[in-house]
């Protein structure tokens, strides 16, 4: 954990084409969109489950840190994933 890291105030929201949900039959989170589906791996699923249009990136990071205390510093992974997610239009920033 690095105290020098600045707060990231950007607030991600789910892209309007996508629906995010837990799929019991696949034991995974998925993104559903017109006639398609992306099955998410565990960390991607955990991150997106915190994207609610309220939390900013720092708040999401803090929440994950609390949920997975043994995981170490997650902020890089989270930022990287959110970048990919934005390129795919899965999320946008408010």
């Amino acid at each position, binding site marked *: 954990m690095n105290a020098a890291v600045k707060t990231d105030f950007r607030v991600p929201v789910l892209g*309007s*084409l996508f*629906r995010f*949900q837990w*799929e019991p*039959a*696949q034991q995974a989170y*998925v993104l*559903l*969109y*017109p*006639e*398609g*589906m*992306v*099955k998410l791996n565990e960390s991607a699923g955990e991150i997106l489950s915190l994207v609610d249009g309220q939390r900013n990136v720092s708040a999401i990071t803090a929440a994950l840190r609390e949920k997975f205390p043994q995981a170490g510093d997650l902020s890089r992974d989270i930022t990287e994933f959110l970048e990919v997610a934005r390129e795919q*239009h899965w999320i946008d920033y408010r």
Partner: protein
Amino acid sequence: MNSTGSTTANTLAREQKPHGQPLWLLAELTYKCPLQCPYCSNPLDFADTGAELTTDEWISVFRQAREMGAAQLGFSGGEPLVRQDLEQLIAEARKLGYYTNLITSGIGLSAERIAAFREAGLDHIQVSFQASDEEVNNMLAGSKKAFQQKLKIAREVKAQGYPMVLNFVTHKHNIDQIDRIIELCVELGADYVELATCQYYGWAYENREQLLPTRAQLERAERITNEYRETLKAEGNPIRLIFVTPDYYEERPKKCMNGWGEIFLTVTPDGTALPCHSARMLPIEFPNVKQQSIEAIWNASNGFNHFRGDEWMQEPCRSCDEKEKDHGGCRCQAYLMTGDMNAADPVCAKSPDHHLIEAARASAEAEHPATAITYRNERNSRVFARSG
């Protein structure tokens, strides 16, 4: 209208487990349709099939398939809007957790009904077009008012906040207007655009001479589509253009529905369950949801097990080192063209029947009078039912 769900195939395929779950349920609610598209994928003898499933029977199908893992549900037909219980079916499906897709020609749709579907939880509407040009569109749909109505509906779908897919079936008569088609889609605010040549089964096979574009037409259309992709991307437009070429210009076949009985489950208006919407043409007995559970149909029926694995293959597929890749190609195409459903798909250059594909390509180069189109309607369907 009818769709093959081809965009899904690729996305879902990456996720599938060995011997998959029925992730994609296509509910063909009715064969009734106010249009008469000459490339409709409904069976040629559709006028001759049994009574439609009731509301409760459909809901039971949705529940069972959802338990087996289905996540995408397409409401198709015929024209699904003809079903008066569509709102109820959407609501039930949404409650079960499906992503719900309505695949429609837009004919018979109103702003009020679009709003009612939204209320019921509908996720997405796909509107199918025949061409960007009013006259060609109307000729192909067999209806004068169709085109204006579609434009109106597409605008309304976007105005009410749905994601929108526009589907243009491309063929000889409209593929040269691909630039205008794309511009129309951009103007209408589509999120995805499917530019797909029809698969030549069913009605399209009857009309293949009228529909199959030439290689030069195709190459031009693909080049123009690529140019638009770049321009639109540079402008920051997130629209996605999906261009699907007909396998008639390939030397290897496409894999059957990402594997026969691997991902797709189609239920037809009378309850017959199929591994794909065309499979009904095959001389195989397919199970019916009125008699068997979806679980039994998917895992244990002869119809669904028929082309799983590769024991059924004959030469040249049996000893072919590429058989894992395409699984011998499309069974319906093999049957339709060679009369043998176990044969290699004639699209394959290794097939002894490949000359049939080459002959169709040559025929696409020739002129054919437009009067020869066979429209999909009940009268023509009865002719097929009698002779078939």
